């Protein structure tokens, strides 16, 4: 029997994967993708609970999460392009101008 706990564990795992990606990778594109992974983990939770409670509102919020993800991806990639045009790199470690 698959309970909501399973889905939650799954989403926790996926979330942690995204977290690891954010923590370890230096390629900013991949970091953005890891963030997408985390958002998906969130969505899995929403859907799982909407299934458990038999309540579609969870899906509504998942839709909103997807919207935000789309906006975030668009703007983030735009920033990456602009940055790349200036510094010829997408290495996040070279994006450390804001420091003392």
């Amino acid at each position: 029997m698959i309970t909501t706990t399973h889905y939650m564990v799954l989403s926790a795992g996926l979330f942690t994967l995204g977290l690891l990606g954010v923590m370890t990778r230096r390629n900013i594109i991949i970091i953005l993708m890891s963030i997408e992974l985390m958002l998906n983990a969130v969505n899995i939770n929403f859907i799982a609970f909407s299934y458990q409670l038999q309540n579609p509102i969870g899906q509504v919020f998942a839709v909103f999460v997807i919207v935000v993800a789309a906006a975030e991806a668009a703007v983030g990639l735009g920033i990456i392009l602009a940055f790349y045009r200036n510094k010829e790199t997408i290495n996040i470690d070279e994006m450390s101008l804001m420091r003392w």
Partner: protein
Amino acid sequence: MVDAVAFYVLAALILGFGALVITAKSTVHSVLFLVADFLCVAALYVTLQAQFLAVIQVMVYAGGIVVLYLFVVMLVNLKRPPEVHSDPRRLGRLGVVMSVAVLVELVAIFALGWSKPEVTGGGGLSPKNVEQLGRLLYQDYLIPFEVASVLLLVAMIGAIVLAKREL
């Protein structure tokens, strides 16, 4: 029985592709794995009676967002691989440790059954999934819906302004 098998298979695929996404050497490969991951998540949605969301997942994520990533990856043709230069002050390992710790804690919480996972009476989710969501979105959640659309518009303009070379 069947759904259990489906779940475990899909979960394995999702986690596996996720791991591949963050470990793949070439960016394009990780993009591909990301697509695969999203498709598996969509399949998971289908098993959870969220067909509309599954399709949206495929359409928006796989069909839109990730294509965007792919474009960027292609536009950014690097002379040197992005990962060579590493700042000594990065605390990567500590990050890994912390993430794993968080994971352990979460799993502990779930495993200890503190999230009340018993399934309530079914039937709330009708097979006419689309109508349900449509009514919710356009009646109860109209304002958030409009706000979200405004957010999209703003993001679109912002992306254009950022990415365009000369305005």
